[in-house]
């Protein structure tokens, strides 16, 4: 009798597990299938890409789509331009943001709480409010049509990253710092030689976020960049869509080239990604 029940329990548990996997798989298909189609269409001939019913496996395999993209769009140049925005963004996220974050976390000064409140409010400020006057100012000083409007503001550090890093610095015990202060260490030395090494995981998180933000940004380049020589991958891809929208093989090849680095980065920095996202959400 008792073996019968335990068998039934085991059977029920197994069914439960199988159902769980089944539901998870069906859901995951909806999320992953579009990307598989992106990849497969990037290797299809144009005849096959618009075939009904749709087919997932390319036949024949057209590797040329990838090289053809470069004939119509200077992807390598777009890539270099994108890096010229991505690198300052990552720098701005790591150095100026962590300086301010450390100060907000540890250095006492009159007005600190008020300034921190202002910083928090700017995180919720819709970007559109500042966009028009900024565009006018940048146009007046001759920056529109250069990369500068996309680079200079990020060098000041971003409120979001400052907030994130501050939360992290708050969790570091003060003992080391107190000892250093008693030894006559200045705040800058403490930031540089104690806090930065301890904050490596948080800095990596912020760097990954900054990379993604700059890599994916579309509105900024759309508004500020002038001619095709300055286009980033986002902007180049959009122009490609509007000029060669019907050449699906090439379009998906170009899209794959833009997505792939992000996915590779995700796999290398998975832990920091997840950590960063949870850090933004948990302390709501």
């Amino acid at each position, binding site marked *: 009798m008792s073996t019968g029940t335990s068998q039934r329990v085991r059977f029920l548990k197994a069914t439960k597990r199988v159902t769980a996997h089944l539901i998870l798989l069906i859901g995951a298909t909806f999320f992953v299938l579009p990307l598989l189609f992106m990849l497969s269409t990037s290797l299809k001939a144009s005849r096959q890409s618009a075939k009904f019913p749709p087919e997932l496996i390319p036949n024949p395999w057209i590797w040329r789509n990838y090289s053809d993209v470069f004939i119509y769009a200077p992807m390598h140049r777009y890539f270099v331009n994108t890096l010229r925005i991505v690198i300052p963004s990552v720098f701005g996220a790591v150095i100026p943001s962590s300086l301010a974050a450390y100060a907000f976390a540890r250095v006492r000064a009159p007005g600190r709480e008020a300034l921190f409140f202002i910083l928090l409010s700017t995180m919720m400020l819709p970007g559109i409010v500042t966009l028009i006057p900024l565009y006018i*100012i940048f146009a007046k000083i001759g920056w529109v049509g250069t990369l500068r409007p996309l680079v200079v503001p990020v060098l000041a550090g971003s409120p979001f990253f400052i907030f994130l890093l501050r939360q992290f610095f708050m969790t570091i015990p003060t003992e080391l710092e107190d000892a250093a202060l008693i030894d006559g260490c200045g705040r800058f030395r403490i930031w540089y030689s104690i806090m930065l090494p301890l904050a490596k995981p948080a800095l990596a998180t912020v760097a990954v976020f900054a990379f993604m933000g700059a890599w994916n940004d579309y509105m900024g380049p759309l508004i500020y960049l002038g001619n095709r020589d300055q286009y980033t991958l986002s902007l180049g891809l959009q122009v490609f869509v509007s000029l060669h929208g019907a050449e699906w093989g090439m379009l998906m090849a170009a899209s794959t080239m833009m997505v792939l680095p992000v996915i590779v980065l995700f796999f290398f920095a998975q832990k920091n990604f997840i950590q960063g996202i949870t850090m933004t*959400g948990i302390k709501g």
Partner: protein
Amino acid sequence: MTSSIAKPRTQRLSPSKREAISFYLFILPWLLGFIAFTLGPIVGSLGLSFTRYDMMLAPKFVGIENYQELFGDPLFYTSLWNTVYIVLLAVPLGMITAFSIAMLLNQKVGGMPVYRTAYYIPSIVPAVASAALWMYLLQPQWGVINGILKAVGLPAPGWLASRVWAKPAIILVMLWGSGGTMIIYLAGLQDIPEALYEAADIDGAGRWGKLWNVTLPLMTPTIFFTLIMGIINTFQVFSIIFVLTDGMGGPINSTLVYLVYIYRKAFVSFKMGYTAAMAWVLFVVILILTILQFKTASLWVYYEAEGKPSR
């Protein structure tokens, strides 16, 4: 041994003053950036909204004319309605999708890291690439989505080519990127102490009882945060729609959202005063909604009485 403690008299500045100076030096880059790129432009944009300015002639003060014109502009209402439509559907649906997946992923079954990655990756696909991909998938005649719908005997809508289906199509694309919110929920779910569920088991609570009385109340702070940010961000949806509709917000303005309309007025017509007024109206709408949410939070957001100190 030459610290300030050893010979405080010789120090010209008191330690607290030195601290204050370091503080302001440390935050200087942000402070300058804040003044130049945030505070200045906010004030500027408010001033600008009371002028007529086309970037050629000097700005001319026109009082509240821009606001009057705006409230008589049919496209203003169209774009506001399209945006509200998308916010009303995309935000709750996105939260429900993300929450359901997070619940599924919070089970003790093997292969979770693989599933988690699968659900998460679409949310990091750049907006432009995502738009290009979905243009392909949503093609009415031979697209993959309609292929699936036809295969199971459902009607195949015109999606981005249809006035009725274009907004749902965009919401579908946005839902595909629910993974970011999902990760936030998943972390929240994993923070819920197992003991609470065990206690609920002893009380004879079923699956729904546990969801309703344990999980959801404890998740309300996280849900509140994602709701606030979701509304702020969705009101400013731009890139995905701009690329999907080639900058037009079509067909026949059915996906003309607020920011696409601002873009058109600012960078096609160069009506800078008018767009500054538009931006301020949106700002006020978002601000009111955010304040309302904070004011009503006490009715449904549950904060543990003791527990982690709130920062």
